[in-house]
């Protein structure tokens, strides 16, 4: 294993990887593989098309829209309009947990709804079937909202899902809206996140102006309650004294979305999937946003302090400090136990549009080093920070994702902080509306790879010989077949929560197990071990 203080220069392995590709592919991939040099401003190519035939981790716009953003909301019926597959594959597979208030309250997340289009629907159009499906869903369940998700063929055959939704909304008197999230839109699931943000903003946010009681009102954005993360964060926020108006969209319901514009601060977890919502809410309603990270105990503490400073209330600040002190006692106890066994070990992270950044915090806390990381569907701003936003060229694939034109709401725009207050807070180091990205986290000669391919994964594992690799289900058993433990950071390997203080404890224990387990020693049978001798032993009777 490498000494973690002196990283091996990965330039040679980068060249070796590229040499295998056809020249055009090599040129393109070259720009997405960056050897970190923190002293220079570095660009990375991201959010561009995956190359056909190069095995990718990425999914599609439908997955990002239906699966990621809308999936975790319990009291809406999400109808997939298309052949059966898309609805089937996104049925309960993302582990968004939800807890309705009572046993009778609505929860449709265990159900999969689809129009199951047949060839005749493709030939003659599927609008009629969609209309009937919405009616049948209404008749059976009387939900408060129904949404429709378009799959690939819908855009091609020209079904007007939005017109059907409008018509049924009028007819049924409930909220019905549709998403044009065909799988071919954009270059990854990221396009679907954007489409979902737009739809929620247009059709739901702001429908209910009731101002709820409570101090320090916030929305938590980009937290999807995988493995119960949102439950842990709800616990922390309540103890700290914040009032959570809505989460987009872990453990969420439609009523909270509708009311979310009454909050006074948006905090963003997953920048990639939800920054659109924060920006639109800021423009329309005057709610500032803060990038936070509740992955890692120190990161959680830091984020809570940022939020308290934003509100600037002495009592809140004290309460947050007390909470941190109380929680850190248990965290430090587990860290004392686990860190010595993990320290110096190497991690690689290839996941998501935020997690490959956030989870570096947890590994840092364990004294482990992230030598190589990248996103599956991040954009340049997720790598390089939001200051590159003006430099990002809009290409054909981004242009076909609707950019909503948002204006100040005549009546409801209310700047939560004056321009002067914002300036002053920023001056004091509170990074309002800023995000520095993943690359800032990574040290000299670490390697950043966007949209890593299977081939690159194998080569880089051979090169780095990491103690742990973090990715998703498609990579899980490939990497483990190589004798390297893989921690899934989409599904958490069915564990968690990993957010917040208790989540950090869970993660330390899990990583300690994974990097120190003896099971990998079982792989080589004794008769194949180097220097194995056949010795005979007899039990004397």
């Amino acid at each position, binding site marked *: 294993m490498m000494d973690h203080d002196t990283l091996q220069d990965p330039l040679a392995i980068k060249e070796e990887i590229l040499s295998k590709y056809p020249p055009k592919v090599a040129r393109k991939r070259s720009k997405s593989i960056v050897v970190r040099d923190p002293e220079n401003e570095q660009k990375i190519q991201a959010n561009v098309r*995956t*190359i*056909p*035939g*190069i*095995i*990718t*981790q*990425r*999914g599609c716009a*439908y*997955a990002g829209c239906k699966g990621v953003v809308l999936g975790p909301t319990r009291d809406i019926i999400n109808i997939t309009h*298309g*052949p*059966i*597959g*898309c*609805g*089937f*594959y996104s*049925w309960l*597979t993302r582990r968004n947990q939800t807890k309705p208030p009572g*046993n009778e309250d609505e929860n449709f997340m*265990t*159900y*999969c*709804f*689809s*129009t*199951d289009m047949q*060839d005749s629907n*493709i030939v003659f159009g599927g609008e009629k*079937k969609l209309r009937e*499906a919405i009616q049948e*869903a209404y008749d*059976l*369940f009387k939900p408060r909202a129904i949404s429709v998700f378009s799959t*690939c063929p819908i855009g*091609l*055959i020209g079904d007007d899902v939005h017109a059907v939704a409008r018509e049924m909304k009028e007819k049924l008197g409930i909220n019905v809206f549709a998403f044009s999230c*065909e*799988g*071919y*839109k954009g270059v*990854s*699931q990221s396009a679907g996140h954007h489409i979902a943000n737009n739809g929620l903003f247009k059709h739901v946010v702001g429908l209910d102006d009731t101002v709820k009681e409570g101090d320090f009102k916030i929305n938590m954005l980009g937290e999807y309650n995988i493995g119960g993360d949102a439950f842990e964060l709800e616990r922390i926020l309540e103890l700290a004294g914040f009032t959570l108006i809505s989460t987009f969209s872990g453990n969420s319901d439609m009523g909270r979305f509708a009311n979310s514009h009454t909050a006074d601060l948006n905090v963003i977890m997953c920048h990639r999937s939800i920054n659109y919502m924060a920006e639109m809410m800021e423009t329309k309603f005057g709610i500032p946003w803060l990038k936070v990270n509740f992955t890692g105990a120190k990161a959680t503490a830091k984020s809570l302090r940022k939020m308290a400073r934003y509100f600037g209330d002495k009592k809140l600040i004290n309460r947050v400090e007390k909470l941190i002190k109380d929680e850190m006692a248990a965290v430090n106890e587990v860290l004392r136990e686990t860190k010595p066994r993990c320290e110096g070990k190497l991690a690689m992270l290839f996941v998501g549009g935020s997690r490959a950044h956030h989870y570096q915090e947890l590994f840092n806390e364990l004294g482990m080093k992230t030598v190589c990381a990248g996103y599956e569907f991040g954009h340049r701003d997720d790598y390089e920070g939001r200051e590159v936003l003006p430099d990002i060229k809009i290409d054909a694939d981004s242009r076909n994702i609707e950019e909503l034109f948002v204006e100040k709401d005549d009546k409801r725009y209310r700047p939560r902080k004056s321009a002067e207050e914002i300036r002053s807070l920023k001056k004091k180091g509170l990074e309002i509306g800023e995000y520095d990205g993943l690359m800032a986290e990574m040290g000299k000669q670490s390697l950043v790879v966007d949209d890593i*391919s*299977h081939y690159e994964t*194998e080569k880089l594992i051979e090169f780095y010989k990491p103690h742990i690799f973090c990715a998703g*289900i*498609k990579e899980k*058993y*490939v990497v*483990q*077949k*190589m*004798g390297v433990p893989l921690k899934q950071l989409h599904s958490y390997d069915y564990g968690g929560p990993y957010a917040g203080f208790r989540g950090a404890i869970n993660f330390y224990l899990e990583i300690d197990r994974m990097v120190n387990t003896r099971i*990998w020693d079982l*792989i*080589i049978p004794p008769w194949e071990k180097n220097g194995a001798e056949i010795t005979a032993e007899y039990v004397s009777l």
Partner: protein
Amino acid sequence: MLLRHTPSEIKERKALTINPAKTCQPIGAMYAALGIHGCLPHSHGSQGCCAYHRSTLTRHYKEPIMAATSSFTEGASVFGGQANLLQAINNMFTVYAPEVIAIHTTCLSETIGDDINQIIRKAYDDGKVPEGKHVIHCNTPSYVGSHVTGYANMVAGMVKYFSESTGRYRDQINIIPGWVEPSDMREIKRIAKEMGVKAVLFPDTSDVLDAPQRGKHMFYPEGGVTIPDLKSTGDSKLTIALGPFGTESAAALLDSKCKVKYELLDLPIGISATDRFISGLSRAACVEVPTSITAERGRAVDIITDMQQYFYNKKVALFGDPDQLTALTEFLVDLEMKPIHIISGTPGKQFEPRIRNILKDKVPNANVRNGANADLFLLHQLIKNEPVDLLIGNTYGKYIARDEDIPFVRMGFPIMDRIGHSYFPTVGYAGVMRLLEIMLSALLDRQDRDAPEESFELVM
């Protein structure tokens, strides 16, 4: 309750499928293609399809599932996917060096109308296919049939591209298994060997999707039917096709292409269907059934005669794929159980009459439904109206089983929350023993759980 909104009152639906008992064609084609040695499956569509199929197969097998995609964007969707596919073929051969690329289509490329035959020809013409390597394909429109149809189409694709009649007779039998597990394919090969029959099994996912942990990833694992073997199927004596939905199209094509006759049997699940398979194999290869196989059968039947009291008259609900359900229903009837609700999302007119013919007067009023709107929502409603003692189906069944407190046996695709299916067969007499064991465990665990203290049994 997990499925708290499911009412017991059944209203006929025409448009809305709720909790499907099927998925789409391409995943079946991908699974079948993995049963060719050195094959890289390729999904011609947008990359989400490939990601979903790989994820679902991975969750089921807990094994690497390697496959590539044409990564359609809006441009490809408008102008056609030829450029993407040609580039993909070149990249796959360059980077991943497969023996064969097996392309299947998706609803996207089918709706566009991409002509895969023509694109493959162009790939050869342009020199994108290295000497001695192969590109095959099948059409798998997701809006027709189900995942089982996709499996069948890829198996037929193997025949279309590879089977050759050289005029040289080979003393071998082709066996085409329906969509079963690698464990089942391994067991079918073992049975053939035990009987002294030379068999070519295709596809064959054993040693691919149950690959051993050796500390290194083999991109192309050791298993899978080889291309020479696939070619030789055109010279075989006979084809035994196991399960009409998964295999008949391939067997019929082999007959019309290479004049190899076929015998269509059920999947050898349960005593009777296995008996027919063994007899069929024995007839086809002109070999006697060895005493070792007869002994296996005897052991399986011995369990039945020992334990029948626990099966007798128990009501069962089952859902899944038609070939499995047909054989399984017959097995349950052989045990004198009562399969009263039988649901498959896969369409096909022959299913219901076949099941009715098995149930006959033994279970005359069973609910048998397949195709449109035959889904788990309906199954759950049927169970609410007439409860059962046992539920058999894929992992999604556990939501019904928990809500209704029914013993549950996992069988079918996908099973994402237990292991076993890829290692222990349900076909053959060994499969009978496994099914008996898991069904008995489910039933007896329930009896143990629910028994009052005074009648808690030590011996059962």
